[in-house]
């Protein structure tokens, strides 16, 4: 409970948590809300556009009808698109993080507990993968996977797969120190098998670390999905995605500069909130958790994944 109290004393973390919860609630209730406003993100409304395809009215066509204006060329309601885009972002972000965290925890646990050759091989793979051009790989992978394979699932799997090494490294480090502790030795002495020790003794003690990491991985995954959609290889239209809207906005710069503001602002706000929350959680849970010096130079200190 003291963790929660320490977290509540950090005003930035509290604000960030509220923002995250608000966005998550909005994402979950998106169909309900757009049902109330009467504009879904799929219906074209060419009446909202002028002859050139640009929105009518100031600031991208913002009005009582269309709170965020409308999308150029189609006249679809931008508020609905941003709202449903949050659904896409959160779904992909959370599912991909779940993939990364479960894979990473399992691998890190086994490598750290087994030690020896297993550990050396796994650590080497983690090192190589951490320094890998993962964005380029992800983009390329979308080209070869059969079109019949559901795209959103592919995006989740690909992003999730490239996220596990960071988790595995941290979990491994924790396990290395945990397995020297007396409660683990006691369990071993009483005849607990390796699987039992990992599940009953180690896993519960790893929970805090994993939670902090998950909080940092979710915005990274959201950012990667947006980047892929921005480049045109992410979730396919007409599924709304912040990244795709931002990508579309590039060609509308000179005519409709306001178009980029709402999806862009939403993406920035969510990422910022998650990062602040992650920082706050890290400080609240354990100040010592903060970064360690890399063992070897190939082990980079990757704090946040930056997509360029």
């Amino acid at each position, binding site marked *: 409970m003291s963790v929660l109290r320490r977290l509540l004393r950090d005003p930035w973390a509290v604000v960030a948590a509220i923002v995250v919860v608000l966005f998550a609630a909005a994402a979950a209730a998106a169909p309900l809300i757009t049902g109330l406003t009467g504009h879904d993100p799929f219906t074209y409304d060419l009446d909202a556009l002028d002859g050139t395809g640009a929105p009518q009215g100031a600031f991208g066509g913002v009005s009582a009808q269309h709170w965020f204006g409308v999308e150029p060329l189609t006249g679809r309601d931008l508020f609905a698109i941003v709202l449903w885009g949050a659904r896409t972002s959160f779904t992909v972000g959370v599912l991909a993080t779940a993939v990364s965290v479960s894979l990473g925890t399992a691998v890190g646990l086994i490598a750290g507990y087994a030690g020896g050759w297993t550990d050396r091989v796994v650590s080497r793979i983690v090192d190589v993968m951490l*320094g890998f051009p993962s964005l380029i790989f992800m983009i390329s992978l979308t080209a070869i996977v059969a079109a019949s394979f559901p795209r959103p699932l592919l995006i989740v799997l690909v992003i999730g797969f490239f996220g596990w090494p960071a988790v595995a490294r941290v979990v491994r480090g924790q396990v290395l120190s945990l397995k020297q502790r007396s409660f683990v030795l006691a369990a071993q002495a009483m005849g607990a098998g390796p699987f039992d020790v990992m599940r009953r003794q180690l896993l519960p003690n790893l929970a805090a670390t994993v939670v902090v990491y998950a909080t940092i991985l979710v915005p990274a995954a959201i950012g990667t999905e947006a980047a892929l959609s921005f480049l045109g290889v992410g979730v396919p239209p007409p599924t709304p995605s912040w990244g795709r809207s931002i990508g579309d906005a590039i060609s509308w710069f000179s005519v409709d500069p306001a178009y980029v503001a709402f999806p862009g602002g939403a993406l920035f706000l969510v990422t910022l909130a998650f990062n602040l929350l992650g920082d706050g959680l890290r400080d609240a849970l354990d100040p010592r958790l903060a970064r360690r010096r890399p063992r070897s130079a190939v082990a980079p200190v990757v704090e946040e994944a*930056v997509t360029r």
Partner: protein
Amino acid sequence: MIAARFVLGRLAGVLLVLLVVAAATYAIFYLLPADPARLSCGKPCTPENLQRAQQFLGLDAPWWGQLGQYLLGIVAGRTFGTGGGAIDCPAPCFGYSFQLSSTVTDLILQRLPVTASIAVGAAVLWFVSGVAGGTAAALRRGRLADRAIMTVAVAGVSAPAYLVGILGILLFGFALGWLPTGGYVPLTEDPLQWLLHLLLPWAALAFISAAVYARLTRAELLEQLSLDHIRTARAIGLSEPAVVVRHGLRNALIPVVTVFGLDLGLLLGGAVITEKVFSMQGLGSLLITSISSLDLQVVVGITQFSAFLVTAANLVVDLVYGVLDPRTVRR
């Protein structure tokens, strides 16, 4: 003696990693898809191109034969096809684009100057500003300057590159009209225009990346400054700048340099997003166009090339690390 063994050992390790990476890339991209020939022949896929691709890829050979030929091609070059239609692909051969009638290596070399211009300039900018910001924040820990710098840094970490780039174009390109809104001018053609076209991409990339470096530098420097040898250095009467720079920063920068080398290697392999935002024809944009035109050879070639770059960067970082921190060599 120790140093030589260290370098040789690292070199051997890197070669092994390169081999594994090349083999894994080949396996994923050529052995998994149902029809690599169709994926290689481009869009639209003319029958003669398809036939050529099938013949060139040697798809009738068993998988280990294909893989062997591919790996050998990277090291020693290879010839695609036989007889009059044969195409020579000198080492390092990363494939052949039937659509663009060019070896992938040539395509990469054509685009590399653009990406390199973006990456190197941006990297210098973000390293300097990140380290400076992080040092300033660490020295004023807990005070207003620290909090201001770290707030900007969190914002930078959270802002996607393309968003920063777009805002930059809107402000400096369209609203103020100071800088071009996109495109690339070769350095050899017009150095001033080259610089003007690159300023925005550099600034955008530096803003988001410097944030990571500032956070890292601050954390490392604070840790260093709390150690005993710093207290000793102060006690023997060294000036504060000497203490901070020579005894604090020098050690604190070791992990920062590590990240820097890898980041630069990564970015050289294609600044995909930045290139799209600023409509520059670098490696990243080549990758994206090859994906939409289904040119598997180019896609894999670029992927392979950027993986190689990162591995090479790893090696350089490892060797530099050995110089900065001799303990790693002796280990």
